């Protein structure tokens, strides 16, 4: 507690209260008039000079906890004072932050009450942030002292912390954005605006049944269901081939499935055009062969479907492989002992036990397809889907943010419905097959009638993926794609040339700037994402508290919302005080953390539910508190999940585009937005060369991390075994 009191005072008295221009890491303010200059002064100096007097009341909650310093935790006064101080301070901080903006009061009733004095303030800086966290944790300590969650300070603080940041960076911006669905052009609120935008023919039209176009909502829904089904089936095929067949090239197939995950957007689409477009090599070949006119069949639903299936099958595979491996061989053996043949065993035992995996794979395919932006943009033709419609409602010639909000709501409704449908389908049945007992059996092979088509499908699809990636590499080393096929390395040279001079290496290539920014932002975001995700997973699996379901829903929300909506809502919410971070690297890091956190949460929950609760209990019985238990017992056992979360968030931070395109700025340009700029400018060679380089960089990173996972796992197992026996 003393720690947080000190933090609060430091924040109030020592550090600049407001956001310092020039970024979080510039320390220029130390030398330019600090601490008296209005821009850099701590709150104490501001108020002492008679400025920003609305910060004075914060002194009360800062001073209050000093009263109970010597008192024991069990004293009821202790808890009351802390809760009072924390709530007062935090509440006042937020109230003043929203109440007084860059142009004085933000609300008309405040103006009515106090007139319009010449007051203004910028976004919160170090000082305000420290104060806010101090108040927050004083509050949680007070709540813990009252006996919530067995008086466990760590758990209450963790819950408070996660709720606060999820509210600030997920609920607040999204609610802010969705509200604009009800705003008329003149800024008033009205339900009719929403209705007129909602019941739009472009959204719900069913014209495709009689030759015209269908609405974007139906297109998206239909496409997402198809993609979900196909990716699940293909993913299952791959998983079965890898675990239950004698197929020889299993390892190669497994490696191939990783590729699409680490591929920047647009690249698959461009490769497909090169193969199957109007002048694509495959199209032209077959047109010549059969003497027919080549067509533009690729543009529209077929193209988007192929591209999304290519991109999302690996995700289904990764979900299913764990489940398929997890089905206990003993159960299958039991079925066989009871005279079931291999086909019966598969159909009545193995397949039903895979239901959770199938449902999850479908759900992920469905959501990814709904939120996908790059593929429909390149291959969509006249096939409109929600994600691109949202983007062009905002940046297109309509400038209709309200329409974007309405479309986002429809999209969100679809994804959430899918989420609940999945839960309902799984029901409350038990699918547990992994128990503490020894389970040394071997998975039976697939029945032959199944094995042949499954291996055939998997092989054909794997070959197809290989061809597409071959095209990508080829595209990066030809002069001008599709026109001049002379081999050249000039695109790599333009992007990544370096010059060795006396002062050292000079990065002269055009791509270096965005390359280093991307790598460093991804590297900063990855560990933070993993940390937030795992703490959340710990709270969800190991602790019980009121509002847990709503809490879980909130953490999944940012995953289900398309990046475009996140991007715009972040600009709208974080361009003005109290949290003013647009144009900085911070906003990119924050957006990646909350976009990718749900995967960390899922991975964490999955591995944590495998850990027996008796481990925690014995640790607690031996006198450790829950923080020590988390750090010493659970965390070491979670290393594989940590690394999975790290890999995923690192890779996604390097390949994400839809949110990023709104958040990049001059100083912080990301690789993907740079690539899109090149594509727009016809530099296909450069764009593909850059993408290919990114693919190899990420392959190296993933390989390195996988190598670490393997080693850590083995090392830890023996160590834990040793500890247990002693």
């Amino acid at each position, binding site marked *: 507690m003393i720690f947080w009191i000190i933090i609060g005072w430091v924040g109030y008295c020592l550090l600049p209260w407001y956001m310092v221009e020039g970024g979080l890491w510039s320390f220029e303010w130390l030398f330019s008039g600090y601490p008296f200059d209005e821009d850099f002064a701590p709150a104490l100096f501001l108020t002492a000079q008679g400025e920003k007097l609305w910060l004075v009341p914060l002194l009360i909650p800062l001073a209050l906890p000093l009263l109970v310093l010597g008192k024991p935790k069990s004293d009821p006064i202790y808890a009351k004072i802390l809760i009072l101080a924390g709530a007062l301070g935090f509440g006042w901080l937020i109230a003043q932050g929203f109440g007084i903006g860059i142009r004085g009061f933000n609300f008309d009733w405040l103006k009515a009450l106090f007139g319009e004095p010449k007051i203004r303030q910028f976004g919160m800086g170090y000082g305000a942030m420290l104060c806010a966290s101090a108040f927050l944790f004083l509050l949680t300590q007070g709540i813990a002292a009252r006996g919530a969650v067995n008086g466990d300070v760590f758990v209450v603080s963790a819950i408070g912390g996660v709720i606060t940041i999820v509210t600030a960076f997920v609920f607040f911006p999204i609610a802010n954005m969705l509200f604009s669905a009800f705003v008329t052009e003149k800024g008033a609120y009205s339900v009719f605006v929403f209705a007129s935008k909602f019941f739009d023919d472009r959204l719900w039209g069913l014209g495709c049944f009689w030759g015209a*176009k269908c609405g974007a909502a139906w297109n998206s829904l239909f496409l997402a269901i198809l993609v979900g089904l196909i990716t699940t089936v293909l993913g299952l095929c791959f998983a079965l081939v890898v675990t239950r067949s004698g197929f020889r090239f299993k390892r190669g197939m497994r490696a191939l499935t990783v590729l699409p995950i680490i591929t920047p957007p647009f690249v698959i689409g461009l490769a497909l055009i090169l193969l199957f477009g109007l002048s694509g090599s495959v199209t032209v070949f077959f047109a010549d062969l059969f003497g027919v006119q080549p067509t533009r069949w690729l543009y529209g639903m077929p193209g988007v479907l192929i591209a999304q299936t290519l991109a999302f099958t690996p995700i289904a595979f990764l979900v299913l492989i764990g489940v398929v491996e997890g089905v206990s061989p003993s159960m299958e053996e039991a079925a066989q002992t009871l005279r079931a043949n291999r086909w019966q065993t598969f159909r009545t035992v193995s397949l039903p036990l895979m239901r959770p995996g199938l449902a999850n794979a479908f759900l992920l395919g469905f959501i990814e397809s709904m939120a996908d932006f790059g593929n429909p943009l390149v291959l969509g033709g006249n096939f409109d889907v929600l994600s691109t419609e949202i983007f062009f409602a905002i940046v297109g010639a309509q400038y209709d943010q309200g329409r974007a909000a309405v479309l986002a709501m429809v999209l969100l409704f679809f994804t959430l419905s899918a989420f609940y449908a999945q839960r309902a389908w799984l029901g409350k049945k038990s699918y547990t097959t992994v128990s503490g007992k020894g389970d040394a059996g071997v998975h039976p092979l697939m029945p032959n009638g199944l094995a042949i088509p499954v291996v055939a499908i998997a092989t054909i699809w794997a070959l197809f993926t290989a061809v597409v990636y071959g095209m990508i590499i080829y595209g990066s080393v030809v002069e001008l794609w599709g026109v001049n096929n002379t081999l050249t390395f000039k695109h790599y040279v333009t992007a990544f040339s370096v010059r060795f001079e006396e002062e050292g290496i000079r990065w002269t290539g055009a791509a270096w700037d965005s390359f280093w920014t991307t790598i460093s932002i991804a590297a900063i975001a990855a560990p933070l994402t993993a940390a937030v995700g795992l703490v959340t997973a710990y709270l969800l699996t190991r602790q019980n508290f009121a509002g847990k379901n709503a809490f879980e829903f909130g953490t999944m929300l940012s995953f289900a919302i398309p990046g475009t909506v996140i991007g715009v809502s972040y600009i709208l919410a974080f361009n003005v005080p109290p949290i003013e971070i647009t144009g900085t690297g911070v906003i990119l890091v924050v957006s990646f953390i909350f976009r990718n956190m749900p995967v960390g949460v899922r991975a964490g929950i999955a591995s944590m539910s495998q850990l027996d609760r008796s481990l925690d209990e014995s640790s607690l019985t031996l006198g450790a508190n829950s923080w020590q238990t988390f750090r010493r017992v659970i965390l070491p056992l979670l290393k594989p999940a940590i690394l999975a979360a790290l890999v995923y968030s690192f890779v996604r931070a390097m390949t994400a585009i839809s949110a990023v395109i709104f958040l990049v700025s001059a100083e912080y340009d990301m690789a993907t937005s740079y690539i899109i700029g090149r594509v727009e400018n016809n530099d296909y060679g450069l764009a593909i060369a850059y993408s290919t380089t990114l693919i190899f960089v990420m392959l190296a990173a993933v390989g390195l991390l996988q190598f670490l996972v393997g080693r850590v796992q083995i090392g830890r197992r023996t160590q834990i075994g040793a500890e247990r026996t002693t």
Partner: protein
Amino acid sequence: MGGKTLKKLTTTLAGSLIVFAASMGAAQADKLTFYCSAQEDWCQLMARSFEDATGIDVNMTRKSSGETFAQIRAESSNPKGDVWWGGTGDPHLQAAEEGLTMEYVSPMRDQLHDWAISQAESAGNKTIGIYSGALGYGYNSDLLAANNLPEPACWKDLLKPEYKGHVQMANPNSSGTAYTTLASMVQIFGEDEGFEFMKGLHANINQYTKSGSAPIKAAGRGENTIGIVFMHDAVKQAVSGFPVKVVAPCEGTGYEIGSMSIIEGARNEEEAKKFYDWALSAEAQNLALEVNAFQVPSNKGAQTSESAPDMSQIKLIDYDFKKYGSSDERKRLLQKWDEDVSVLPQ
């Protein structure tokens, strides 16, 4: 007890910091946040050349004009950008209409073409023309020959049934280029006949793309035969080595005026004005030649590329930017297009 000693400690610490800080002087370099909506390499060149010319640090962000407009509007209560250069004129006019940009009369005006100044006057001096480009179309000559199609020369040629499935344009709802096309047709043929033209065209269109220059890029790659775009975009394809021919339609055509505006509430207003004046100079506009930008510069003294479409040979209509750039007229035309044209079967 800890609290009081702590407070003492912090005050003494703060005191020593004051002395320390007071002894250091503050020296901040001039800087400019530059939103650019032209092609990437042109933006880079403008930013670096302005830095060389003035010593002002430039922070450049490149986004399409629609994205930049969306960003400026989102940032309006706390502007981050100073000057917005490039991109088609409509969003600049729209920004002026909404009060997002600032009034400024540059001393460079007497060096400019009339169309650049009339652009400024129609927006209450809140924006100004920096280059112009005429609307037209381009075709892939290989594909045209492969399909035994005649070479088109006029707008009305595109309505011929043999071009069915060979024409591409952007969706006016998402692209400024396509909106300019719609507004030009209305001005060339009159509103009723203009919409009849759009309906006839609709029957031949194979795809309404999202982005304005996508049709001609698709034509370059051999994915489409004819693309309705700004002619300088088509020229760029041809110069890049793709088999693209550029057509200036015989009936006359509309044009865009690429514009520049200073953002209202700019944090570096002085620097923004310096950039504004510099960008209107002949030497700044000559930079376009280095990056294959084939628009016509607004400074009378600036050079135009040899490959650029010769504006004196093109029949330009008297495009009414004030009327067709206003949001009411835009909404009306787009809605009419949505209801009368886009729903027709193809």
